[in-house]
């Protein structure tokens, strides 16, 4: 896993989120601590000031008492004694309060005890001097010493109060210094943490928005896919469905409803509802498949018919495969195709095939009739003629003999017509018949079959050496036989036929009259003679069945031979052409593809 994928993963987001949550919590804790400390130091300052006030109050009480006493001594007016008389109680409560305030400070407690002793001492002296003043003994040494003593103790009380105030101030100073250190750092830390968490939040925001963007893009892509799936479903007559295995619920695509002849999502997608459409005759088979599907969580190709509400029957084919989603749930993704057209086309083809087969059978029986039944009477006619010629020759008149000759030549012609027609109809193409053959031997066999005529006409036949070819051997032999016998037949009178057979190879692009060919190269075999030739005008006509260029009394021939040649060449995916010049000769060229 590289960094980028970690950065993009959902886990990364979780970690970052956890981290920022932790930081915010820490920050909150720090702030709380800070405020705690702040309020504590505020409390301490207040505490110190309270002690201050209380001490000041104590000092002023003593001062009031003393100044009251002095005023009384001078004026003898007892009303001036009022503060002094009430001071005792107030001082006690003030001292109690101070005791309470300094309960956590042993040193101040000690100071307070000393202060209390000193106050008591000073109050005693007050009392004593006051008694002396009341009894008018102002000039007595006791009074004077008492008065001085009073001033001294009063001073020491004041000193003690100042000492305590100073101590309290010092304490406050130390505390302030101590807390100010942490307090001055705290706002900075909180601030930094805040900045850090903001940065993290920003990062998360960027990441999330990036993810959202790609999610949006993917969503759009999905939308496009969905749309194109819907379209292709309609065009290819497909419907999709999903079976959620764990929940045992189904989802049907819109087009599946259309295939059933219903409005999209017009009923709840359940197996029961779908089964209602299955053709009653196929229901058992279908239920069996569904049961198997439920058990194996797999659906092999299943073929069945459905019955739409309008009564039309459709052929369906279904297939399903289990997919496990990211959350581990099993889904069986199924496709159902309406193959009615295919089935109908198949049936049509099947029907046509049967028809063709029937036609072929008829043709075969026609062949049999032609080869057997037609030939039999003809053969007998010929045999009887030969009997007449042999046995009854003497009994016949000259005319009778002529008629016999005419019947004989007519029946001979009929025989060759039947033979050639049979040859033509048997010249069929079958892939198995193709084999690698030595064409030179085939040519020799053809020449051998024609040996008699060749020697009769004193014909000379020369040929190039040809390579081996993949052909139907007996047909190529027939091709040579027909072309050579054609040349021999249409030879000029009194001129010995010269037939030249040459071999070459031709590129498909150089083939005459051929625009497109799936082969590149062709064997090219040319058979050239010095016969009567023909007008180039008729070059194409001569290959047509029963087409003859010459009167049959001049030249025998059925008009089938060259048609057979053309058929043979076409069976080999080749081409045949003819060139002729009257009285000079003709040239037949055939091209056989080199595969």
């Amino acid at each position, binding site marked *: 896993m590289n960094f980028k994928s970690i950065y993009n993963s959902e886990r990364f987001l979780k970690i970052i989120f956890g981290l920022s949550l932790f930081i915010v919590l820490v920050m909150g804790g720090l702030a709380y601590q800070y405020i705690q400390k702040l309020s504590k130091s505020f409390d301490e300052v207040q505490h110190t000031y309270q002690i201050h006030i209380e001490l000041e109050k104590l000092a002023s009480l003593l001062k009031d008492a003393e100044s009251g006493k002095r005023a009384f001594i001078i004026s003898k007016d007892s009303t001036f004694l009022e503060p002094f008389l009430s001071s005792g109680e107030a001082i006690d409560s003030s001292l109690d309060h101070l005791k309470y305030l300094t309960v956590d400070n042993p040193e101040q407690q000690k100071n307070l005890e000393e202060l209390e002793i000193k106050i008591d001492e000073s109050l005693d002296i007050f009392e004593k001097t006051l008694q002396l003043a009341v009894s008018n003994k102002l000039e007595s040494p006791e009074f004077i010493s008492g008065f001085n003593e009073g001033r001294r103790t009063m001073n020491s009380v004041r000193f003690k109060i100042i000492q305590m105030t100073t101590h309290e101030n010092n304490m406050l100073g130390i505390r302030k210094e101590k807390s100010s250190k942490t307090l001055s750092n705290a706002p900075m830390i909180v601030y930094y943490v805040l900045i850090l968490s903001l940065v993290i939040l920003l990062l998360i925001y960027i990441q999330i928005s990036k993810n959202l963007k790609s999610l949006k893009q993917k969503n759009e892509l999905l939308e496009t896919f969905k749309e194109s799936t819907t379209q292709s479903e309609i065009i290819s007559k497909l419907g999709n469905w999903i079976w959620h295995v764990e929940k045992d619920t189904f989802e049907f695509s819109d087009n599946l409803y259309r295939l059933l002849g219903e409005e999209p999502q017009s009923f709840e997608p359940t197996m029961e509802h779908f089964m209602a459409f299955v053709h009653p005759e196929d229901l058992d088979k279908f239920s069996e498949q569904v049961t198997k599907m439920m058990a194996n969580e797999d659906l092999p190709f299943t073929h069945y018919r459905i019955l739409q509400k309008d009564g039309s029957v459709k052929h369906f084919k279904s297939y399903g495969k289990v997919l496990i989603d990211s959350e581990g749930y099993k889904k069986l993704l199924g496709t159902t195709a309406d193959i009615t057209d295919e089935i109908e086309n198949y049936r049509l083809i099947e029907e046509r095939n049967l028809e063709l087969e029937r036609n072929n059978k008829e043709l075969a029986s026609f062949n*049999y009739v032609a*080869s*057997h039944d037609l*030939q*039999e009477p*003809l*053969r*007998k006619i*010929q*045999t*009887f003629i*030969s*009997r007449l010629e*042999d046995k009854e020759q003497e009994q016949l008149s000259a005319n009778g003999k002529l008629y016999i000759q005419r019947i004989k030549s007519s029946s001979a012609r009929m*025989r060759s017509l039947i033979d050639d027609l049979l040859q033509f109809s048997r010249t069929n193409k079958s892939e198995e018949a193709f084999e690698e053959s030595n064409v030179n031997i085939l040519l020799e066999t053809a020449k051998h079959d024609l040996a008699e005529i060749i020697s009769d006409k004193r014909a000379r036949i020369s040929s190039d050496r040809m390579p081996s070819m993949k052909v139907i051997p007996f047909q190529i032999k027939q091709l040579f036989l027909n072309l050579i016998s054609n040349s021999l037949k249409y030879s000029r009178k009194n001129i010995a036929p010269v037939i030249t057979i040459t071999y070459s190879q031709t590129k498909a692009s150089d083939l005459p009259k051929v625009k497109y060919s799936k082969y590149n190269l062709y064997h090219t075999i040319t058979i050239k003679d010095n016969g009567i030739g023909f007008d180039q005008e008729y070059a194409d006509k001569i290959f047509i069945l029963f087409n003859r260029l010459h009167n049959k009394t001049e030249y025998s021939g059925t008009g089938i031979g060259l048609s057979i040649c053309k058929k043979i060449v076409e069976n080999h995916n080749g081409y045949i052409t003819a060139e002729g010049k009257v009285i000079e000769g003709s040239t037949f060229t055939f091209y056989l593809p080199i595969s």
Partner: protein
Amino acid sequence: MREDYTYVVLADDDEDDRLFFVEAFEELKMQTKVAVYKDGVALMDALNQSDSVLPNILFLDLNMPKKSGLECLQEIKCNNRFKDIAIAIYSTSASEEDIEDTFVNGANIYIKKPDNFNILKKILSDVVTMNWQYHTNGLNKDNFLLRL
């Protein structure tokens, strides 16, 4: 008795062909005895007689009603009693299929009925004088069909 002549039998439903066959042998003036049957059933009935004289050469037409030449051939080849009979197929057609079927079923020669009486005579004379032992030993699909 058997050494004196060759016993030749033809099964053919065609009256004219039977006539030509008999006349040809008459004109040939060979040491032969000829018998003809009008279909396969008649032929097989005659052959299956326990005291029947078996022919040296049996000519079989293929296209016959009730029992075809091919069926006769198969029956004959199944029966060991007939193992010495030379069988010549004598048919109008010479289709590849017929030649193949009869060759596979053990016929000795295939004759296409000629359209000339003199040729017929020559064929029959050749077949009767043929050295069957020699012919059968070197028999293959190429020399099975009699060519003149």
